[in-house]
Structure formats: C-alpha cells, structure tokens
C-alpha cells in the first residue's frame, strides 16, 4: 500500500528533541493557537468580498479510525524512543493518547477568505503557491504580491502554523482547503522527533501527502484531493484546520472566547471578523455582552489588573482619537490614540493594534505602569509595516531586542523611547487637568463634624385596637380618641414606623407560639402584621371557639393592675370603648411580655388559685391562658385574683379582649 504519511528517510538520528517552537506555543495555551489561526484567517481575507472574515471554532469528539492515515501515524508514534527524560515523558503521553478509540478534536474553519492557492502545484517552492508553502515548509512566510496588504497582514514569521500541532497530544494537525476554483485538497503534518521505524531512520516531521516521483530521482509532494466527509470536509472557499487528539487542558471555551476578545477586539468591533465558538457568536454585536459578563472579565475597574480588554473596548468606543506622531529619527509614524483617564484604573496600559484589528501588546509606559489611564493605539499601513518589523515571532510585543542590524536596532529603540515619551506627556497632561495643583484639598473623609438627628417615637397609644374581626382578620382603630402605636402617621409624625415594625415582627412570632399553646387568635401588637401571620391566625381561629369573636389588644391606659400581698387586682375600663362597652361579657387573654416586646404564653391555672369578680364575688373557671365569659358591668371589668405560691411577681402582661 502506498504510504500516506511521508517522513523523509535519513541515514542516522542526530536531533533527539521536539521542535522548540512547539513548546513555545504550548506554553501560550489555547490563546496562542486561537490567535494564530484567526490571524491567518484575517490574513487570508478575500478582499474582493466586502464581508467580515468568519471563523467557526468547534470542539467535539470523533472516532480514532476516522483520522486519515491513523495506522501509519500509530506505527511511527509507537516506534519513538525518548532520549531524554523530557522527550520520554512526551512520547509516553503520545502513546497513551493513542489508546483511546474516541478522541477529542478542535476545528477552525474560515469563510470569506481566499483559501490556499496552487494546491495542484504541490511542493513548488514558489511564493505564489501558498498551499505548498503552508503544507510543506516551516519558517517560510508567503509574501502577498500586494505590498500594502502585506504590511497589514498579521503573520510574518511563517511559523505560526506549528501552533496548531502544539494543541494536539500527538502534535498532529490537518488542513482542508477549498480554493476559488472549488478545488478541495487535504494535507496535514505531525511533529515527532527523529526516529527509527523498521529498517529506516526518519526525520521528525511527517506530511500527510501524496508523492510524485520525478525523472531525476527527486520527489515532489502533491496534496491529496479531499474525499473525506464530516469533520475533514471543506467545501466552501477557505481553510479548515482540524486538530485531532485535542489536548484536554486546552478545551476551555471561556478561555477561547476571552482570547478572541482580547486579541481581536477591534477586528470584531470594526466588523472585520465574526467568530463562532461552538455556535456562540462573537461579533461587533455581541462582544460587549461577553465583556460585561463577570464570568468572563472582572467588572470593577479597580480589579482590572491583568486583563484590560473591557477598558480598551470602552476607550475605543467612547473616546475621540487624537493624532500623534512618533519618530524613529529616520521616519515619522502617524498613529491614532484613543485615551481614557480614570483614577479608578490601577494599571495603565496601552493596547497597540494593527490595522487588521489584532492587538499586539498591552504596552507599558516606563514609570507609568500604575498611572490611571487606558489607551488604544492604531496606525496606518506604514505604521503596521514598521510595527511588524519590531514584533517577536508570536506577535505579542514590539519590544524586540533580537533585531540584528545595529542601525535598525538603534532606530527601534529610539521609536520605543519616543512612543513612551509621547504617552508620558499625554498622561501628565490629563493628570494635571484632573488634579489641579492649586485649590482646596478635599479632606472630607478625615476632617468633619457630624450632625445627628433624633426623632421622638410617639407612644400615646390608648384604648383598644381590633386585631381580629371574626373570621375576617383586620385591624382598625375603633375608638375615636384612641391611637395605636404605629398608626400615628395621622398625627403628622410618622416616625415610629421603624421601631414599630421591629416590635411587631418579634412580637408576632412569639404570639404565634403563644397561640399554639392556647391563646386563641391573639398575636402581634395589632400593627400591620404580614399576611402569613394573619392567615395563621385565621386558621387557628377556626379551630377555636372564638370563631365569631373579635379580638382587641388592650392598651395599658385602660388597665389597672396591682399586686397586694397574696392577691392581684386587675381592672379594665372599657366604658369609652365603643366595641366593648355595651357587651355583657367577653373573654380576656393573658400574655407575658418582656422588655423587647416579645410575648409568651401564660397558664392561668398554674398561677392563680382563684379568680373572682370584685363586685359580685362570682368565681370564674380558670383554664390555661384565657379567662372566659367575664362579666362586663357598665363597661368595666374588675377582677381579684388569688396568687399561687409560685407566682412570679415581676411579670409584666399584655391583655387581649374578645367580644
């Protein structure tokens, strides 16, 4: 059978390590690969269309057997031998990953892009044949024939595509391409170490490709036409990258979405880019939704110490750009600067964006890293070109000290210094404007006097207050001249609300307990209790004989209570109380009250040995907490109670009357 996975034969093994850039990208995590692939898609934008580049990112699972050339891949991986502790560990990890039949994958599919060109030419080493370059070379950056567009493009180092390999447990990736003529091809690479398999030694890199044997004994790689379905299929113009054996530790949707917002905020906002992550749309319409979601980003300005994307977006959307010129002493570069000054900001950063909308760096201004500002810097084509020359391979900083040419290096340093200086001036200007050097010093947090306010709580409640009316529980003030605590809003000094409510809440609760033990239908202080409490009252009431009675709380101005030796006198004056004065008899409930206004049940039979009417000497039967059928004469009740020995003389009471 012809081989599908091509490893070049070598005579012996020299290099025993994995490609070093794999580790670089691996350590950048999912952000690195997401950034690289989206950048490549932006670079591949079909400029004939006036549409944003669309990238669809999906991660899922697939059967191992559906992976192209999996048997050959397995054979090579299983033949690997680690020569150092580090490579051994990686190789073991690879072999272990192969043991699963169901494996994870991630795919990046772009649309409104050109796709790779010249697939049919295979390995041509011609810069026009981007397919060949993408498929078969490392470190070769295909230069756009359009210089202006080339300047704006993100990539330049030509190694970004290896980022995809780093996201696979096997360092394996495939790409399916469809060009503008509808030609569909598939390729792939695997990054191993140099190894011996069978009788031969092989190079580290394997290519999923067909081979053409040339007349002079040389060979040339020619891509397979894509006949795969499903995950590996790409039938619209553009590129689709599929990474099987997707690393578990990379499968973090939140992190992917964040890295897109972080890196491509402007591309999204300018509608150059729309990304779907497992169906979730990230676009100019939705970016703010993610940025304002605490699940993705800290929401308090003061807490934005490592991630500044929400600030950049605000700055870009809310500020008018100012023009700044930065020279490298050879040429002037013109940028637009969006600048926010806000003293809540704890770390001052400036995002440097390419015109394509990709962020290069959270630029720090030397000595101003904790100044309260946020800024966004964007140049034009010339500026892009220059910035690109300053970038490191992963496009994450322009502070690149690796420029070899001494004169260029000098200019680069000069440029950075001038940029920093320009920003310092702008920051100082805003700081001075926001912190006038002359004038009053605000010391209101440390030097102040207080003005306190007190309100009198009206406590003139008198009379009786109905708290339950038969089955219908209501509370009304029933006597003209009497007033209940809490009802004194009518007096124009409704200041008692707070205290009153507190009292009721507590009193009401205890009142419920009390009822449970037999004080039928009483509770609270008669102020507006909550409806639940009233319901309970009602339910309780239907179980008691007081069903048809109305219950009133009795204010202390109607009561005279006195303990004299072994007896207690208790008088009620209802002669001015419309509701009671004409009654012939009523029931009286007793409840103990403490200093907090909480009520407790009280068992009459355990405390009084005899209860008589002072006037008629008629004795009442003593049952639990309620005295029944008490005679009302001329609106008055006058009781004389003989105390048992255990009676606690310190107790205070509240009373309820049922009529």
């Amino acid at each position, binding site marked *: 059978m012809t081989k599908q996975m091509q490893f070049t034969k070598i005579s012996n093994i020299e290099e025993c390590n994995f490609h070093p850039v794999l580790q670089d990208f691996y350590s950048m995590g999912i952000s690195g690969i997401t950034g690289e692939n989206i950048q490549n898609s932006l670079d591949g934008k079909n400029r004939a269309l006036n549409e944003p580049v669309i990238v669809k990112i999906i991660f899922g699972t697939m059967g191992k057997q559906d992976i192209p050339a999996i048997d050959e891949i397995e054979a090579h991986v299983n033949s690997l031998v680690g020569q150092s502790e580090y490579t051994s560990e990686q190789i073991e990890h690879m072999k272990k990953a192969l043991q699963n039949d169901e494996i994870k994958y991630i795919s990046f599919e772009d649309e409104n892009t050109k796709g790779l060109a010249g697939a049919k030419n295979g390995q041509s080493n011609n810069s026009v044949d981007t397919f060949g370059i993408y498929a078969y070379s490392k470190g070769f950056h295909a230069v756009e024939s359009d210089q202006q567009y080339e300047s704006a493009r993100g990539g330049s180092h030509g190694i970004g595509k290896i980022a995809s390999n780093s996201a696979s447990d096997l360092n394996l990736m495939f790409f399916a391409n469809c060009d503008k003529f509808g030609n569909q091809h598939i390729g792939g690479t695997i990054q191993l170490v140099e190894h011996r398999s069978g009788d031969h030694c092989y190079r580290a890199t394997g290519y999923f490709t067909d081979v053409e044997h040339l007349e002079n004994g040389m060979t040339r790689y020619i891509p397979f036409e894509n006949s795969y379905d499903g995950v590996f299929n790409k039938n619209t113009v553009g590129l689709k990258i599929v990474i099987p054996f997707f690393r578990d530790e990379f499968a973090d949707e939140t992190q992917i979405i964040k890295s897109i917002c972080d890196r491509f905020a402007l591309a999204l906002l300018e509608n150059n880019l729309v990304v779907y992550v497992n169906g979730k749309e990230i676009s100019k319409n939705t970016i703010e939704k993610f940025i304002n979601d605490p699940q993705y980003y800290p929401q308090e300005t003061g807490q934005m110490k490592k991630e500044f994307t929400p600030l950049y977006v605000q700055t870009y959307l809310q500020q008018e750009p100012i023009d700044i010129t930065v020279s490298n002493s050879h040429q002037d570069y013109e940028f637009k600067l969006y600048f926010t000054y806000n*003293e809540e900001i*704890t770390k001052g950063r400036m995002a440097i964006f390419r015109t394509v909308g990709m962020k290069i760096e959270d630029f720090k201004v030397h000595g101003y890293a*904790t*100044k*309260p500002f946020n800024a966004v810097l964007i140049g034009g084509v010339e500026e892009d070109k220059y910035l690109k020359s300053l970038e490191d391979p992963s496009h994450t900083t322009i502070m690149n000290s690796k420029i070899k040419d001494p004169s260029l290096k000098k200019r680069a340093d000069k440029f950075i210094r001038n940029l920093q200086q320009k920003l310092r001036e702008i*920051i100082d200007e805003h700081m*001075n404007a926001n*912190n006038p*050097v*002359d004038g*009053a*010093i*605000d*010391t*209101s*947090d*440390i*030097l*102040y*006097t*207080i*003005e*306190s*306010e*007190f*309100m*009198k*709580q009206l*406590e003139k*409640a*008198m009379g009786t207050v109905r708290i339950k009316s038969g089955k219908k529980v209501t509370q009304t003030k029933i006597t003209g001249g009497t007033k209940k*605590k809490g009802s004194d809003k009518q007096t124009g000094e409704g*200041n008692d609300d*707070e*205290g*009153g409510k*507190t*009292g009721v809440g507590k*009193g009401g609760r205890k009142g419920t307990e009390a009822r449970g033990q037999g004080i039928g239908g009483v509770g609270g202080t008669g102020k507006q209790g909550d409806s639940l409490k009233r319901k309970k009252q009602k339910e309780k009431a239907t179980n008691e004989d007081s069903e048809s009675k109305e219950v009133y709380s009795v*204010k*202390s*101005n109607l*009561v*005279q*209570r*006195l*303990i*004299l*030796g072994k007896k*207690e006198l208790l008088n009620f004056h209802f002669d001015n109380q419309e509701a009671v004065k004409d009654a012939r008899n009523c029931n009286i409930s007793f409840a103990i*009250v403490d*200093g*907090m*206004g909480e009520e407790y049940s009280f068992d009459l039979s355990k405390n009084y040995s005899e209860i008589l009417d002072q006037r008629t000497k008629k004795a009442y039967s003593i049952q639990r907490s309620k005295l029944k059928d008490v005679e009302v004469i001329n609106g008055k009740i006058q009781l004389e109670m003989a105390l048992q020995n255990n009676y606690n*003389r*310190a*107790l*205070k*009471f*509240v009373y309820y009357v049922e009529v």
Partner: protein
Amino acid sequence: MIYKKDANFPYPVLSNSSTSYPLAEFTIDLSLNENVDTYRFSFTMNLTSTFIKNLLSAGKAELILVVQSRDNKFFKINSTDSYIEIPKTRISLTNRTTIQMYIQTTEEVSFTDNNEMDEFYSQFKQDIVVPKHGVLAMSDIVLFEGVKNESLDLFEKKLDPDLSSDIKIELGPETIIIHYKSTDLQFNGLQRNTTLNNSYVYIGLRTALQQFIYRYGEGEEYVELSEVEPENALDTKLYVLMGKKMIRELNIHNVDEVIYAISDRIIEKFASAVKGLVS
C-alpha cells in the same frame, strides 16, 4: 428593656402610655457628639414627678440609659450628669437604633408618700411596695435617625516652583495652605493621591494647633477651649471642630492626641493608601 409595648406592671409605673400618674411626665431630648473613639449622648430630661425626683436625689432610684440596636445595652447615669460617654466599641449606631431612659429603684421602695397616682392606686398606696431594681418610670423612646457628615474647608494647596523648601505650611486667615515646590510632591496620578497627602495635612494641623496654643494660651503652654474666643475664620473652624469632638484642653503635649481625636484615622488611611500602591 425598651418597653415598646404597653406592658402592664404589677404596680403603677410612670410612662407615656399609662395613666397611673395622671399629671406627671417623663420625656428626654438627646443630642450626639463623637470623636474617633467615643460617642457622647447629651440629654435634657423632663421629669415632673416630685416623688420620683426625690427618690433619685435620695439615691433610692437611679437613671439608666438603654441603647437598643441589635441587643440592649444599659448605661447607668449619675443623676447630676447631663451627658454620658460611651466607647464606640460598645455600641453600634444605626438608623434603627432606639434610645430610652428609665428609672429603677436601688432598694425596696414604699409608695406611702406617693401622692401623684390615680384614684385607684392611691387608695392602696400604704400597701404598695416596689422591689429593688423595679422600674418606676420609663421615658418616651427616641429614634436615632443617622448622622450627616459636614466637611470643613480647612486646607488649600498651592504649587510654587520658586519655593526654597520642598513644602511650606502657611496659616491663612481661613485655611491651612500647603505650598508644594513640585507636582510630584502632590502624588498626582497615583491611586488615592488625596489620601497620600494626609501626611502633609497632619503637619498642617499640627502647625495650626501649635499656633492656636500660642495665640490663645496667653503665655501658657495650654488652652482651655471653653475660654477661647477665636479671632479668625481658621481658628473658628478648629475651635468648632475640637468642640464637637469633645476636646476640653489643648496643650503642647497633647497635640497629637487632639489630632487623633478630631480627625478620622488620618495616619491609618495614609498607611493603607501606601500599602495599596505597593501591592
């Protein structure tokens, strides 16, 4: 022990909801001062019962202030005092706090001489005995409605590049003016830069208070605040501030204690701002 409810005691009690004492009254008015450590409640008491007043002066009864926030706190008051100072650590004042005063017996008290009760109780007055620690009277309830901070415009700053020192404190007629030689010294642009200037504010206060002693001490090293008549607006502000913060005397040895008491944690806030910059 705040009797929000109408509790019925087993003997007559003077309160605003009871008619046991038909003519007598017991009400209080409160005001509050504070400094960094202490609340001071000043009160005026309106107690019209001669019987109970006599018990108080005879020491047979005592005044208790009750402050109720989450729980009740009780503070005994000497009957001759017009205020009580309570450490801020002991009570918390919120706008739900209620305050009441009551009078309780310090020993068993007979009501034989009590001629202020209503008819019913009066007929038994020879037989009425209130036990030790029994409540005789309860005032109306006062609800604390919170505080408003009033800031004082005490300080100004000026940038003066020609200054022959880095900073200079000038005592103006209305304000303490801090002159800075450069904006760097104002910490502009740093987080909480206003608080970072607390160190200068402290020096400014110290300078102003020292002049205060010099100006009103009449050659002595101390000033009794009650005897001061401030001569300009700045001194008036300091005088009012110290008065509200319950400072009685200012002398050359207690200037730092006075600054601590009249301000709200100047140095502590400064230190926390510095720590914030470091972290």
